[in-house]
């Protein structure tokens, strides 16, 4: 029964992968090795597509792998498998939090956790900056200035300004995303 196995494999990935969508990647390789449902090359394609479609990467990957393996029911079942452990664990943690939110140790722990959480998000943002605003591979040939992706930096500067201007800053983030997509297409940001 392939659907049961799909659910089980993705339940495992959801239960043991900690720290975001790409953390599920090693589990997807394991599934590939253990079942032969898809090859490593197929998986690389699926990751590329998951990164260039809307939706959290982890969910996109589970849906894609599920679809490749078992069609539409496979897509639904793999994704449900991935999210089920999260739902169970978080509901338990949330209950615990509600019961102890006024506990002084819990409060003190969150005093330390909040800056750490912001620090982790900052690190994630930095890796995004490296990918989208810099071209580190150009360093060896062109030196320091070649590392900067000028088109992208200019767009970033414009967006930084726009998101601070009076009425504009209250716009929904989707407006800025749409604008950037258009700019990317018009000025060939992807070099394609």
């Amino acid at each position, binding site marked *: 029964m392939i659907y049961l196995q799909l659910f089980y494999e993705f339940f495992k990935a959801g239960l043991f992968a900690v720290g975001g969508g790409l953390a599920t990647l090693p589990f997807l390789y394991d599934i590939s090795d253990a079942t032969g449902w898809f090859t490593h090359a197929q998986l690389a394609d699926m990751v590329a597509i998951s990164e260039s479609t809307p939706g959290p990467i982890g969910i996109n990957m589970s849906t894609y792998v599920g679809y490749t393996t078992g069609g539409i029911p496979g897509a639904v079942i793999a994704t449900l498998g991935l999210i089920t452990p999260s739902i169970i664990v978080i509901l338990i943690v949330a209950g615990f939090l509600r019961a102890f939110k006024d506990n002084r140790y819990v409060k003190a722990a969150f005093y*330390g956790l909040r800056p750490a959480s912001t620090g982790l998000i900052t690190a994630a943002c930095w890796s995004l900056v490296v990918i989208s605003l810099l071209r580190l591979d150009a360093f060896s040939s062109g030196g320091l200035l070649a590392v900067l992706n000028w088109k992208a930096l200019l767009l970033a500067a414009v967006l930084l300004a726009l998101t601070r201007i009076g009425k504009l800053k209250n716009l929904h983030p989707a407006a800025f995303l749409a604008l950037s997509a258009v700019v990317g297409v018009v000025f060939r940001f992807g070099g394609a």
Partner: protein
Amino acid sequence: MKELLDLFLTFARIGGLTFGGGYAMLPMLQKEVVEQRGWVTEDELMDYYAIGQCTPGIIAVNTATFVGQRRRGALGGIVATLGVVFPSLIIITIIAAFISNFAELALVKNAFAGIRVCVCVLVFNAILKLLKKSVVDKPTLALYAAVALLAVCTDLSPIWFVLASGLAGVLIQSRKGGVSK
């Protein structure tokens, strides 16, 4: 029922506007869930991210479950999570079925290169908002800088940062007398 539908639709919209990992969801959550609807506070959102990064599962789902359950209990958590995965199911299924070279299309490549720049800026702005709430004194500034630096320079799992900083929080507060109060 109306509230549950609202939860589902809000999180479906957030899921559909998330380009990247769970952190790319942060600007949408701040806008829709904190500012427009007031379902949770900025502080709570930060706590959910902290916990979501060290509990099993992907961050986007963990955060959706948290916000949903805060709003409407266990059922709310399930509904919000189904909402956040809904656009992915539809979009990926269509692409998988019909467009074999999707990631290679020039239009897609260029649009996404632009979108990634925007996600950088939006997440950067989101971080500035979080900093105002999380870095409140010198010890929290030191914790923030240490975690950001170590997370960039090492491959350590987020679990260690979360455990260590929680412990540091308790130690710092107890030295200040905050725990014994």
